């Protein structure tokens, strides 16, 4: 039996009071306790980026972060990008360039790319590639993904 701890987290702007097992990751809690299944579990060792979320504005791998470490933090997931059912410009750009192929890595790609645009609204291709270096795409749709980020930065979305 593992210890249980009460935590308070703000997830996509909504405050949540949760009882979490201390050996559960933030990813476990987002998916299984909050039903936010946009964030994906894949490599579970911080290599692939499918589980990327923001914690206090910075991207992290939620698969190697304990849920208790998020106590008091603001968490952003892919579900927080759309505004009342309307895709964000970045999400629209991903659709426009057909960046999502199988789609599994896309939530993580979107969260990393949005974090990049928030701190650097006009990135170069190299800066996009560096910012997304921790997000692997097994379909190898990297060209479409970086095109989408650059298009969103340039305001070229449909």
């Amino acid at each position: 039996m593992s210890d249980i701890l009460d935590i308070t987290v703000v997830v996509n702007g909504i405050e949540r009071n949760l009882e979490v097992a201390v050996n559960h990751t933030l990813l476990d809690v987002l998916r299984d306790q909050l039903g936010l299944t946009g964030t994906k579990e894949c490599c579970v060792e911080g290599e692939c980026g499918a589980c990327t979320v923001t914690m206090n504005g910075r991207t992290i791998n939620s698969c190697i972060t304990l849920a208790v470490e998020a106590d008091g933090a603001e968490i952003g997931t892919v579900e927080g990008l759309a505004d009342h059912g309307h895709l964000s410009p970045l999400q629209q750009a991903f659709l426009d360039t057909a960046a999502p192929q199988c789609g599994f890595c896309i939530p993580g790609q979107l969260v990393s790319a949005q974090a990049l645009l928030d701190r650097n609204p006009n990135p170069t291709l190299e800066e996009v590639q560096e910012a997304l270096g921790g997000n692997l795409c097994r379909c190898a749709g990297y060209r479409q993904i970086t095109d989408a980020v650059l298009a969103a930065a340039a305001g070229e979305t449909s």
Partner: protein
Amino acid sequence: MRAFGYARPESLEEAIGLLEEHGSEAMLLAGGTDLMLGLRGGWSKPRIVVDLKRVRELASGIEESDAGLTVSAATVMTDITEDRRMQQRFPALVEAAVVVGSVQIRNRATLAGNICNCSPAADTAPPLMVYGAVVIAAGPAGTRRIPVEEFMVGPGKTALAAAELVAAIEVPFPPEPYGAAYLRHTRRKGTDLASVTLACGVDASGTTRLAYGSMGPRPFLEIDGTGVLADPKVPDEAKAPLFETIFAKASPSPTSMRSGPEYRLAMLRVLGARALRTAIERLAEGGSK
């Protein structure tokens, strides 16, 4: 993940008390980028995980004094790469911190953790050694200062005594002007562990400090006081014997999956010459100040 207890001390005294109480059954958590893999993979089996991020004395921050910059234990790589004073005074350390893992890893991984994990390939170890960085260890008997090159003993093994932890890392300002550079060799561009890590620093008096990793059980620091290496007018052939002395401790693992020993030794010499050249150029341009 297997079960473990979790403690979140708020003071250094409390944290050290937990280490005294639980001994080797306690493991410290800062960024977790190494620990979490061990917890999941089953090679780390603590009875209790002690999370240091609420300890007020260890809170994230880089403090400046007349002597240098002090990096607290909870400070992550991104804090270092974004810090203007770090960029200006310790460019080789920033060059190392910015290639640790991915953005997501750098947002969590701490400088102290990189040294405590004590991988021979730790990116930040060579520049810390070149800059003469000192670990501030805190334990039941108080604090003591350990140079980074003495702190890193072997793979996963540090000079910390029982119930001691790293409170901060002090990086003293080098003499002005100073030229330094960090280089690494990886299998591919992007996120990878290094097959060779190397940092070099030169000052105006002609002293060259060179540290290299991934070449044995721990990174090594060597100092050339002859002035020959730092002299831009001395041809490379004349520097080669000095490099051989500096690299005498290199004994790369024959079983590493990252690259074979012959290749590593060859790349070590290439990186050594390149980093020295860059350090000399930076010194000539006025260096970090």
